[in-house]
């Protein structure tokens, strides 16, 4: 096997497993966004007990390393489900990854959304209230459009962290690009280690770059003139 064809095969392998990372990133970003919206709403509403629990949850999600959350989800959920009467079934590594990464991400972005909401001046609320907007109309027509430009840079950062953290998911046996890398390194007894990590670095950096670019574009579109 020449070096060149070896290289080509290796790249093909990486490209084949890349969609796994992308799927996990997209689904956990979506799950995280959904849950963060709910969390932020509850935290801002100041509902006794529930809001405090949400605050606590956010501190927890932000303070525990992603890898640990991943293990908790993968090994913990199958143990917990029967306890709360939801039957016994194993959770697939993919599901565990999406759930743990999504929840981890939600803690971060709730901490982006909450200050963005609070950054909208009280005067904007008063004006909308005085004009007779319902709370929903006020939120979607007046408050949200002013929150988005404030939140986007922080949200973009959180997405980049999420992408980085998917480099951990091979630890529960998912063969993603990192998994492929580990296998390939093992096969070559470590001789191509540097090269492979370099390729991985480029792939992560390409994903982050794309995300960053998209967020920047959006920032320009929603900027308040």
């Amino acid at each position: 096997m020449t070096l060149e064809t070896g290289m080509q095969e290796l790249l093909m392998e990486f490209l084949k497993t890349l969609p796994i990372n992308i799927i996990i990133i997209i689904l956990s970003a979506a799950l995280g966004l959904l849950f963060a919206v709910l969390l932020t709403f509850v935290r801002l509403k100041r509902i006794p007990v529930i809001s405090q629990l949400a605050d606590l949850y956010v501190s927890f999600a932000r303070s525990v390393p992603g890898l640990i959350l991943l293990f908790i989800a993968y090994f913990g959920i199958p143990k917990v489900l029967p306890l709360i009467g939801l039957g016994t079934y194993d959770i697939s590594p993919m599901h565990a990854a999406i759930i743990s990464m999504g929840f981890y991400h939600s803690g971060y972005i709730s901490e982006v959304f909450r200050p963005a909401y609070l950054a909208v001046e009280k005067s904007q609320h008063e004006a909308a209230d005085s004009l007779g907007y319902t709370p929903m109309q006020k939120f979607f027509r007046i408050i949200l459009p002013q929150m988005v430009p404030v939140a986007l840079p922080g949200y973009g950062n959180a997405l980049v962290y999420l992408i980085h953290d998917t480099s951990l998911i091979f630890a529960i046996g998912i063969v993603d690009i990192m998994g492929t890398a580990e296998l390939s390194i093992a096969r070559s007894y470590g001789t191509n280690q540097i090269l492979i990590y370099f390729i991985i670095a480029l792939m992560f950096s390409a994903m982050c770059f794309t995300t960053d670019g998209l967020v920047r574009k959006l920032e320009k579109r929603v900027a308040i003139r």
Partner: protein
Amino acid sequence: MHISYNQKEVLKGINLSVEKGEVVSFIGPSGTGKTTLLKCINYLEKPQQGEIQIGDLHLNYQSLSKQDILKLRRKTAMVFQMFNIFKHKTVIQNVMDAQIAVQKKSKNEAYAMSLKQLENVGLKDKINEYPSRLSGGQLQRVGIARGLALEPELILFDEPTSALDPELVEEVLKVIEDVAKSGMTTLLVTHEMDFAKRISDKVVFMENGHIVEVGTPEQIFEKSVNVRTRQFLKKIYAEQDQQKLNIKGG
């Protein structure tokens, strides 16, 4: 009507009736509760007790439903000291939005109404500007147009010119005068005594959460026998003279 914050009573039993089409000015020292009173009228502040009647809408503050609050707010318009213009919308969008959202007007109808109102306040050539590019006087005129576009039964002005540079005050007062003269029921909190004297049917002097005196401009500004009213006016006029001197003296 009563209101308190942290057990500190801010409005202590206010009782006032205003005729349709009447122009009523509120004057009084800072911290007296004038803003709070206006905000109670459209429930931006929440009085602990009291009643309000606007036209055929009669409500008790202790038993307001969400619908009642919306009804109350939709009968009144408020013009704020700091303008409170929506920052992410152009001038015409500011005026149109509530017509579309709240009154369910079509875009075309809302646009036509907004254009008319903006023309009346002299902003026809600014309709597509964003708020960050307007002066305070222009922003305040947008605020007035936005309120009037909803055809309220009552308009509330809270010190509409006190955040403005002196040279911009006149253009806004002119618009307020037009509104007052149009037959719109108008409540105005102001420190512009000469203006209040000129346009009001009734002047209310407030102090410490109470109404001290109500009367025609003449009664309040010239013939008041109330010690507190006279003291307040004397102080205000002295301050105004001082300012004029400062301006002349450079």
